[in-house]
């Protein structure tokens, strides 16, 4: 074990002390110079230091009680090695290689644990965030943006949550891009479990990061801090779908505090799931019309437009052809698809629209046509009676 390793083992121990808190730990390190020194200091002395540093009597008592209970039960070396064996790496704020962007945070994490790798300093990174319960439209947009930003070489940073977050990240991985997932629990826990595929993919094509020690269970109160790190690691934040009241706002607020650009994907005014995005746009957020817009602006920020501009232009022209939802349907399919929507609609409602348009059709006929379109991949059936346009 090198000297640094030994110190890291003690840092790891210190980070795991329950109730102590990062601020108190930082203060102790400041006083003693190293975590090992703290380990070897009598508890009485630690208590005094904390009291002198302004913590209240009651708080200190609580901290010290937890400290005493914890002290004997933690095998410093074994636990540290166990973590390394799991492939989990840690990097302290005092070390080189700690993401510089995070240091600008109001309270940067003292230690960052990660699987895979950390985002490179030179890389452009976008936080792609949104609702967990999202619509077909949201799924499509998350996929489209994730995939194309990934292809442009922009890292996608997000919380690996269900819905927009996970879909966008997975799309980036699949298109060969990089993605970094910041978790609200220990990096050894795949939460939510349904995102196992992404968890494995992100480990390969980026990293799994967490400011919390391995083994920390996912807790609601940990997520806001996680969100601030998502905002901190990225150059811009892209909101795909969000309700008016949503956890997404925490990330957006933190990004704005840090002076980062916020983009929102516009939605229809009647969609409650797009309320948040539309509101952001009214408040001055950038309107994300194509992934390339965002890419171009980011590269400009990074002073790299020279290298990438060409690619960006190509992408825009490509986009023209791929423009969302427009495809070459013929004859009846073309006609029928104009009555379909991106959100699933019941067959009854579709039929009514068709009749309003003056076309003659019976329900069985319509169902037949729709099922045929589904079979040909031109429409999507949700449940038995709901149909929507196929987007991707």
């Amino acid at each position: 074990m090198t000297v640094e390793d030994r110190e890291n083992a003690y840092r790891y121990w210190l980070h795991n002390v329950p109730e102590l808190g990062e601020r108190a730990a930082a203060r102790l390190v400041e006083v003693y110079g190293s975590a090992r020194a703290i380990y070897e200091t009598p508890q009485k002395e630690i208590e005094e230091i904390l009291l002198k540093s302004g913590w209240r009597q009651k708080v200190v008592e609580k901290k010290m009680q937890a400290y005493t209970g914890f002290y004997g039960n933690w095998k410093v070396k074994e636990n540290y090695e166990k973590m390394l064996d799991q492939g989990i790496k840690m990097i302290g704020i005092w070390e080189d290689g700690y993401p510089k962007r995070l240091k600008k945070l109001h309270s940067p994490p003292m230690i960052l644990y990660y699987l895979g790798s950390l985002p490179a300093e030179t890389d452009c990174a976008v936080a792609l965030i949104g609702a967990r319960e999202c619509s077909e439209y949201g799924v499509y947009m998350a996929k489209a943006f994730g995939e194309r930003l990934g292809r442009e070489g922009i890292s996608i940073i997000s919380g690996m949550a269900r819905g927009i977050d996970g879909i966008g990240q997975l799309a980036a991985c699949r298109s060969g891009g990089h993605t970094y997932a910041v978790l609200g629990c220990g990096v050894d826990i795949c939460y939510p479990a349904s995102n196992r595929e992404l968890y494995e993919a992100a480990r390969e094509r980026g990293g799994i990061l967490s400011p919390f020690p391995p083994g920390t269970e996912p807790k609601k109160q940990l997520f806001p801090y996680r969100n601030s790190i998502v905002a901190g690691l990225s150059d811009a934040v892209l909101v795909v779908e969000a309700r008016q009241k949503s956890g997404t706002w925490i990330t957006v607020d933190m990004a704005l505090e840090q002076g980062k650009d916020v983009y929102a994907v516009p939605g229809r005014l009647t969609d409650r799931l797009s309320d948040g995005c539309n509101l952001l746009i009214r408040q001055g957020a950038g309107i994300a019309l194509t992934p390339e817009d965002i890419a171009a602006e980011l590269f400009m920020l990074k002073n790299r437009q020279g290298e990438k501009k060409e690619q960006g232009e190509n992408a825009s022209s490509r986009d023209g052809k791929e423009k969302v939802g427009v495809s070459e349907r013929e004859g009846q399919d073309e006609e029928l698809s104009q009555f379909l929507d991106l959100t699933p609609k019941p067959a009854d409602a579709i039929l009514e629209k068709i009749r309003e348009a003056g076309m003659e059709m019976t329900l069985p006929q319509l169902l037949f046509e729709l099922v045929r379109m589904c079979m040909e991949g031109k429409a999507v059936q949700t449940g038995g009676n709901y149909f929507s346009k196929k987007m991707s």
Partner: protein
Amino acid sequence: MYSTILSGAIYGMESYLVQVEVDMSPGLPCFCMVGSLSGEVKESGERVRVALKNMGIHLPPVHIAVNLSPADIRKEGTAFDLPIAVGVLVSMEQLKKEETEGILFIGELGLNGEIRPVKGVLPIVRAACENGIRKCLVPKENEREAGMINKMEVLAASHLQQVIEYLKAGPDKKNRVLSPYQKKEREKEEGYSPDFADIIGQESAKRAAVIAASGFHNMLIMGPPGSGKTMIAKRMPSILPPLSEEESLEVASVYSIAGMLDEKNPVTRKRPFLNPHHTISPYALTGGGKRPKPGIISLSHRGVLFLDELPEFKRQTLDILRQPLEDKKVQIARTYGTFSYPADFMLIGAMNPCPCGYYPDRNKCRCTPYEIHSYISHLSGPILDRIDICVEAPKIEIGRLQSGEKGVNSRSLREKVMAARRRQKERYEGTSFRFNADLGPGDMEKYCPLGTEEKKMMETMFQSLDLSARAYHKVIKVARTIADVESSREIKEEHLAEAVCYYRAGEKVFDGGR
């Protein structure tokens, strides 16, 4: 003197004739009854004795023995009061033996000699008729019920005195004492109330209802609160064909045994509709008790059993439906023996698509895929297996409700159903099947052959829509019914496509691809 009087009793759903034997012989005075009797039958002796006394007829101080034959079947109920009283009177030589011959007596006596109604008259009279008996004497209240049996001369009395007078009267005066029940012409056709015309929109749900009614398929309706799931289910009897004479008797028999027959209108051609609350116990559903009474499923025989808020029912309760749905009857075993009640009903379930009720409208629904899945998985697979048709009832916009428009009425829908049923009848002539719903996987080849085009379509559909093998038979079965509704001999592509929709709604490939 020895006498024997004809009566009858029910045993579960079966009825049988009982010989009431009365004998009077010298010895210690007593009123002794034998023949495997339950408590209320034994009490009968006391009622008869007091009733006769109050009419001024005193029993002689002799040994009176009463036997109900066959003596090895346990007798229940109060229907033996009247035959015992008549038997006693014959034994006392107050009545002539010949006068009572060939008449079936049923009725309970009051202490003043009044004759009171009893349960199960219809099945008993029916069994008697099958045994060649052509005359019966029943309580006044049970007159219409017994009168449902053709070929039977039904006499109804409300007091024992009338019975005595009738039996004493000469042949020409008899009809003046008690006149045989004259069957009234069937009351006018029952209306279509409630009518499907009350339902606005919901075209697909109505269409599914017609198909379900045509093939007697079980149906599941899914939809947000207030979309009219219950309204649709309640209107099912109005589009099902009216009960046939035979069916009507079956239904009335079950109700008669349960003591739930409508006195004024015992014979109805309208199909039963039952919607038990979801707190119902398994025994109330199948029929329970020491000697089981018909439960809800038997009361919905030949009709509709509607289970609203299906996932709210206890799983055990729902699982009990499995056997009756398969066998069309329910068998209940007790220490006394096994009882079998008919239970050939159409199951209609209604449920919300997710806990909040609004899926797939993501503007309102915030249920997680997991929540939706666990809500659906409340229903056990075997029950869903027996439901062929599943349909979603979307929410109706307020504008349409206020427009005052009327939907298609039940009369025209029923015509469609009847036509489809006729086609099935022709097809299944001489087989044990009645409806398409009865077809098993092995019968598909014979009754639901597919053309090459259709077979190809099924293949592509199964691949592109990712359907399970289990779906195959269901889809074809329902497509057969759709073809019948559309009066097509062959199953065509559009029939298959529509049938797939009714299958998919139940399969719930929630959030596929996400």
